[in-house]
């Protein structure tokens, strides 16, 4: 059991290392700078959403609407290009993400309902809005050259997108570990009632967590749309499992109160390198989905087995539990 616990603590490194070794064996030339750069760029989309989700999961909440917000923000940033120019349109796209997050947060905090079910509903709403606005057709932007600028690789390995992701994850790490608001997020996630008693504004932190997650999903969607010069209402529909898997690989607990930015970085890199390896081997998309689903389930089960032995399910304080009776307050 001690070995298991040790392995569990360093599992991000172990899983990432194993993934890289297996990928390198299967794909010739895997460790070239261009392959890694490409992988990092692909991982950045998952990564940006994962940054927001890390904070939310630590605070004991979850957001399933990220993929839909991703599509909606991307569409707005492309559709408005003709009217107000590229930069303002991108800005509006991010604002849309922020607004979507604020709606999620306000409803969860205001109605005191389970964030899983609520964001499931808002996911449907945001996705419908995306279809509504675009008439279910992909929309294209005005400047095709812009995508080339975004795809350009700097310093041999970074694109604008992946550099942004790395910078943000470092900032998140500093924020979560070195600042008081960062620490408060952990307090809220591990025991919201106790956090409230000790003077932490739990509701506000949860609300801002949703805003943060929405903003980052919006940012990821805007960047994706700019890179492809296209906004589509079906963008991001397959992202949910991959993003949750990335965050969970990184050791962030679904029950809240535990998690780290560097873990998420490791998880995102793992999912990214795995995706690239499978794409190079032309594995069909549905097999890739099976793999990310399996990773998710295996890790959640492993996490259960190592960290909660002997504890009855549903006795903990966090908002997300297998027994949701503790949610929504005073039943």
């Amino acid at each position, binding site marked *: 059991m001690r070995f298991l616990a040790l392995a569990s603590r360093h599992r991000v490194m172990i899983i990432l290392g194993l993934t890289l070794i297996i990928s390198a064996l299967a794909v010739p030339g895997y460790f070239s700078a261009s392959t890694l750069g490409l992988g990092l760029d692909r991982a950045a989309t998952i990564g940006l959403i994962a940054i927001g989700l890390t904070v939310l999961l630590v605070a004991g909440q979850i957001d399933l609407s990220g993929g839909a917000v991703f599509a909606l923000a991307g569409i707005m940033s492309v559709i408005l290009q003709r009217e107000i120019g590229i930069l303002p349109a991108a800005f509006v796209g991010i604002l849309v993400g922020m607004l979507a997050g604020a709606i999620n947060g306000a*409803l969860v905090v205001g109605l005191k*309902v389970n964030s899983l079910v609520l964001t499931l509903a808002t996911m449907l709403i945001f996705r419908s809005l995306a*279809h509504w606005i675009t008439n279910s057709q992909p929309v294209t932007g005005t400047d095709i050259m812009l995508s080339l600028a975004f795809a350009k690789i700097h310093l041999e390995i970074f694109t604008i997108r992946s550099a942004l992701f790395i910078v943000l994850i470092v900032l998140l790490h500093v924020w979560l570990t070195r600042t008081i608001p960062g620490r408060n997020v952990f307090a809220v996630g591990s025991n919201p009632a106790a956090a409230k008693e000790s003077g932490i504004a739990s509701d506000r932190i949860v609300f801002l967590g949703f805003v943060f997650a929405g903003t980052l999903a919006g940012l990821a969607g805007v960047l994706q749309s700019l890179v492809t010069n296209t906004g589509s209402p079906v963008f991001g529909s397959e992202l949910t499992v991959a993003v*949750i898997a990335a965050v969970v690989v990184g050791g962030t607990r679904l029950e809240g109160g535990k998690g780290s930015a560097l873990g998420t970085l490791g998880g995102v890199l793992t999912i990214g390198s795995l995706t690239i390896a499978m794409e190079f081997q032309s594995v069909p998309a549905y097999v890739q989905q099976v793999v990310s689903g399996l990773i998710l389930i295996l890790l*959640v089960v492993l996490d259960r087995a190592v960290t909660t032995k002997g504890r009855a399910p*549903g006795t903990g304080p966090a908002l997300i539990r297998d027994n949701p009776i503790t949610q929504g307050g005073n039943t």
Partner: protein
Amino acid sequence: MTDAAMETSGANRNDRFTRGSRLADVLSKAGLGFAILAVVLYGSFVSPAFFTTGNLLNVLTSMSIVGIVVVGMTFVLVAGGLADLSVPATIACGAILSLGLQPMIGPVPAFVLAVALAGLIGLLNGVLVGYVGINPIIATLGIGTIGLGIVQAAVGGVIVYGNNPASAEFAKGRLFGVPVVVLIFLLIALIGHIVLSRSFWGRWTLATGGNYSAAEASAVPVEAVKAGAFVITALASGVSGGLLGLTLQSARPLIGAGYEFSAITAVVVGGVSIIGGFGSVPRAIAGLIFVQLLTNVMVLDGVRTAIQGFVLGILIVGAVGMDAALRKRGVA
């Protein structure tokens, strides 16, 4: 129940709606009936096509396919299992396999095997949620992705067509003027209702969803009850998928997309508590009738699919919010 009895029945958790104001009581019991009536009135006002036998039969048939899933989903919600997101995968499993296996083993064994394999997906969900204690949404999302991927891989990601006219004839046929699919739905709904409201398993399900620790302390096999709810949903979805495949005589891997939302919407709009412990099959079916009629009227009215999804999403948020509000009132 008399008014006096209503006031004093606060100790019974399942009567939470009757503990609060009279208004909440009336709203929860008759509100949906009025809503259905309003939709019917509006529908017959807006479109002359609404009150035709053909249209109503269409509504009834499509309602039956979702309805079979709704019966299962009721068990998941009542047992406190939040929701089963693997429904699209189990429906696809039922549809693709019951068509794809026909040439090899015949229509009836193919259908049975398809439903059984769908049940297997439910068993995996159940074990993960009930026994391992994983969050239901994550578990069913993951298992659903895996299951759908495997089914897609099995048929190479293409569309499967049926080649047994007799089975198609049966699925599209009528008995005493009623479509067979509707009869199967009614049968399943009846069984579901009896199990949930009259059997020990139903009492256990309500108890587990109502108060997990208390049910566990009263020697209810809470883990099995929770796991069972997911198996029931998966079996129901498998049957629903099989019927869908037989009716359409073709099955794509994404055939079940959206059914999980339709089912959840119906159950939640029907007033089944999202946190478990309260609800019944007739309530869920009332919700289903309302949502289906509303969708039908929107279609006849020429409202676009995207807007329909938007309206359904708002309905879920509203219903969940109302559940939370009534819960609070019940305690106060």
